[in-house]
């Protein structure tokens, strides 16, 4: 995982509530057995005018001029400003992979769906919850001013606006440490192997039927 300490980036809008993971990466792309390469198909149905298929050359497809991410103004954006319940629906981690592959490092919204939030954090994509009023203010500022950027400091958990205002935000302490160090969860858990083994032995004594072998 790419560590996340500080990030300064251009902000793009995703101005609708309940953006679901189907919308972020449509199912036809889930046939891939890889973890990378989803970026060109992020928000595929909104982004292109035709229907995308896994093997098509995306650079040849007609773009939807109405879609914010297609406008020159937001080219190179790395922070997405979104509305409530962002990432609801399917548990597909491909949604987080697509966001990361596209170049997003953070998403700001008034609320996130649980599974997306946890997937994002495992892929170096920082979900930041701000109040509805703060998000509203950011949308207004973003629309008012071309080249609107934000600076995110994860160490201090502070967002700095172009006018110098600083807003604190909260992140789960464990996840924050993982992001800061770019550390792999599995490695951290495996350091606790002894504790897991001890628990497992007790668990097996208590619930022996759970440890029967599965034979088809």
């Amino acid at each position, binding site marked *: 995982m790419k560590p996340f300490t500080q990030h300064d980036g251009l902000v793009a809008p995703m101005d609708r*509530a309940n953006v679901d993971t189907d919308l972020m990466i449509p199912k036809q792309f889930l046939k891939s057995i890889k973890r990378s390469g989803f970026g060109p198909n992020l928000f595929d149905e909104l982004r292109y005018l035709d229907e995308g298929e896994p093997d098509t050359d995306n650079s040849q497809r007609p773009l939807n001029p109405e879609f914010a991410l297609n406008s020159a103004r937001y080219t190179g954006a790395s922070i997405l400003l979104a509305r409530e*319940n962002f990432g609801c629906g399917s548990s597909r981690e491909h949604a987080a992979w697509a966001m990361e592959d596209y170049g997003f490092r953070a998403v700001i919204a008034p609320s996130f769906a649980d599974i997306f939030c946890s*997937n994002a954090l495992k892929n170096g994509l920082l979900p930041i919850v701000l109040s509805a009023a703060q998000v509203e203010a950011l949308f207004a500022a973003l629309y008012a001013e071309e080249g609107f950027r934000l600076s995110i400091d994860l160490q201090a958990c502070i967002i700095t606006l172009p006018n110098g205002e600083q807003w604190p935000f909260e992140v789960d302490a464990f996840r924050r440490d993982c992001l800061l160090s770019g550390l792999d969860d599995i490695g951290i858990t495996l350091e606790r192997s002894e504790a897991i083994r001890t628990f497992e032995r007790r668990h097996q004594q208590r619930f022996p039927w759970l440890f029967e072998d599965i034979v088809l």
Partner: protein
Amino acid sequence: MAKTLYDKLWDAHLVEQREDGTALIYIDRHLLHEVTSPQAFEGLSLANRGVWRRSANLAVPDHNVSTLKSERDAGLSALPDPVSRLQLQTLDDNCDVFDVVEIPLNDERQGIVHVMGPEQGAVLPGMTIVCGDSHTSTHGAAGALAHGIGTSEVEHVLATQCLIQRKMQNFQVEVSGQLGLGVTAKDIALAVIGEIGTAGGTGYALEFTGSAIESLTMEGRMTLCNMAIEAGARCGLVAVDDVTLDYFRGKPFAPKGAQWDAAELWWRTLHSDDGAVFDRNIVIDGDSIEPHVTWGTSPEMVASVQGHVPRLADMPDETARIGLSRALDYMGLEEGMAISDIQPDVVFIGSCTNSRIEDLRSAAAILDGHRIAPNIRKALVVPGSGLVKAQAEAEGLDRIFLEAGMEWREPGCSMCLAMNADRLMPGERCASTSNRNFEGRQGSGGRTHLVSPAMAAAAAVAGRFVSVSDVMKEAGGADR
């Protein structure tokens, strides 16, 4: 101290509580399928890691399989779509390499992972169950702690048998009274989501209680818990009772003899204690729930079949107005129109929400002796597993569907997410027993209306949405 069901399940699986609020939770059962596992196995290979406990895992292909008999008969290597074939082959290969037990494609036990699991007794009361699929919440119906995980977590569970979790809060949804004629668990689910919204359950474990829930069969409870995720809750729960035990007794992987007796002792404790405190409660009057139909692009955009699509002027604020007008536009509906004026082109009966034998029976009961209306271009019935299919055929349900003019398919996820060839064309409108009506979910530009199997069957016959309660009352009246 009085505990909730969720508290009990959590405590029994807590390996370690950390100071930062996260905890290590032990996982009893891990279900896998072809779509969310390849990258996890790849991760294990790259890091040179193995599987922690072989017998905890069970894999099955379902999301991306063809449901056409002609395409399935020649086996995996003959499937026409090369991209899907590679994904399915990768699951087989990974299961070989990592020694994970897999129910293969043309095995009679193959089916949608959430139908197969309980059917085999591979999920049981009191377990912690995860799967790289958000509808893992289904298994909370057994009084188990079950939820969906992402692919990184799939890898984490394979490697460590644990998950890093934060304890959720407790939310009690009490459904009092008894459901009326033709009203099903699906309608409870849609009514609850209509009430609390698609984010209403975020951060909560949702326990369904009350007399209407106690009266549900296990299959009904599965339908209900399946949809908990559509209310934003990672898991749904129903307490263990005789209905639960009767369902699991004799299932292939369920304990037998003395082990069953020991298990039953523990399972009998799996309910919220009197006086247990929930962080949030709601009560819904089961008697007043009517058959529901979603009209929009989120499961919370739902109404009684007797109701209407909302009006823009009735929206509380500008954001809601924009949301409504976008949904109406996508769905091709007028504000204020009657739900019963909506005419589907396609009917889909299937998915992990509603493809079990009772679902097929309730649809067949409505369809028996009828033909689908001329405006229905396509009607698919996709049983949840090979065993459901065999059972339905033994009962002659397949004949009823075929004679009504519907297609009888092989088991799989099919048009629930349309990863295979079963999908809507742009603009097509579907009465679907699945769980998500998101834009494009059943095919790019497709329009989905979520309903129960009986409601889908009634819509197939009438060519528009009608109250299945009325249909059943009329049929009952004619009989008398």
